[in-house]
């Protein structure tokens, strides 16, 4: 068996676009990599940066936040707020030495099943390059 590192990635997908995009990928039998654990949220604007930190603390190697394309938000502007927020979080984590490839954001609409697959591939590749995430992981319970 190969010892290749298979990253654990938490994906926060918005209910209206990206989750539907993932659904479309599924129904149209477009296979995407199984490294992601999807958490459905109502809007990318609902994703608190704490979720991201907490995912990293609990053992995720990377995080993906995905929402509707700018201008297409079901709630009109949620993804605009999310964009600012995660732009800052991305820069901040880079500043403390977290590989920028671990924090990803994408716009995937409900009709983009194939794009969803491509995004997941890209995310998995970049997290694989970054390697296992040990920096924020809770260590005291490894026994």
């Amino acid at each position, binding site marked *: 068996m190969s010892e290749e590192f298979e990253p654990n990635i938490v994906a926060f997908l918005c209910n209206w676009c990206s989750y539907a995009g993932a659904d479309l990928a599924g129904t149209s039998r477009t296979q995407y990599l199984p490294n992601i654990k999807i958490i459905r949220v109502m809007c990318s604007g609902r994703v608190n940066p704490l979720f991201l930190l907490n995912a990293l603390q*609990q053992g995720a190697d990377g995080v993906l936040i995905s929402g509707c394309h700018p201008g297409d938000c079901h709630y009109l502007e949620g993804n605009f707020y999310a964009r600012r927020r995660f732009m800052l979080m991305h820069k901040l984590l880079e500043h403390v030495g977290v590989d920028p490839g671990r924090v990803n954001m994408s716009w995937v609409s409900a009709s983009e099943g194939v794009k969803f697959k491509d995004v997941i591939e890209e995310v998995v590749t970049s997290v694989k390059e970054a390697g296992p995430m040990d920096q924020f992981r809770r260590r*005291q*319970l490894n*026994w």
Partner: protein
Amino acid sequence: MGDYKFAKDKLAEVLSSLGDYQVFAPTPAGDVVRFLEVKDPAAVTLESANSTVPPKELMFPETETLFKYRLGDTGLDPSVPDASARRLVFGIRPCDAMAYTIVDNLFSWDFTDPYYLNRRENTTLVGFACGDPCANCFCPSMGGAPASEKGLDALMFDLGDTFYVKTLTDKGDAFAKAAGLDAAGDAESKAAEKQAEEALGKVKRSIDTAGIPEKLPSLYDHPFWEQFSDRCLSCGICTFLCPTCHCFDIQDEAEAFNARRARMWDTCMFAEYTVHTSGHNPRPTRKERTRNRISHKYSYFPEKFDVIACVGCGRCINNCPVNIDLLDILEKSKQAEGKEAKTA
């Protein structure tokens, strides 16, 4: 109990000859000095007046696992961490050593705390007398001294080129033997005595504590607390850096099926310290919290254990960002007009 000495340039040698012990000594990181396990004897400093974080963390760590357990079919499977290692704290100041003797009261009171007491028992304390007390030291007022022997197994003096070591207990003798120290003569012990006396004279601040423990309860509702609490940040500096503050919180931490029960430092200066499940907080403002900190140290603790929970190390004064000065509070409390004591 004997008199020993070793040359100053032999310090690293002495530290590395203590292979039987797990040795802790003041180690600087930038301006911050902490008692860390000695990995590299060259990194140890005895220059600083006192460590930033008190060595209480060696007996009562910031965060400590009490036991671990698994959720599910195995039920509770507590495995208490082993604390039997022989430890030696090198270069602890007399005030911090005295603090242990105060905190011992609490940890061996209605419940004997094995975590703290095992460590205490297995630890040898090699003190280092202060030649030059810092601006806010007031140990003599609290029953200590720059060269106090309370709670120590051995006491070291800096005599220029040599360290003079006076052993005080069997544990101290064992240390001297392990380190292979040379015997010292009368000259050294005289010099040390003289230094101790001089250092005592250099302590600038003092407080007469007579009557304070009895008076504080009568100031329960007194407005004088507000001149301090109004500028209090309600942060944990004074209590976390206090060698005698010993409050802790216990929390369960779980990760999937693995869990542990841990205790961590807590402080009466935080609002959430007293908050009830209902949301009610009996100490809702900084006034009650400031009052509690002082009253606990200077009134409730002596009432129970007959000793004031303060050793005069001055850390709370040195580190307070808004200059809340313990001695100032105590002086003002003496001037304040008390009311009939309220039974709390």
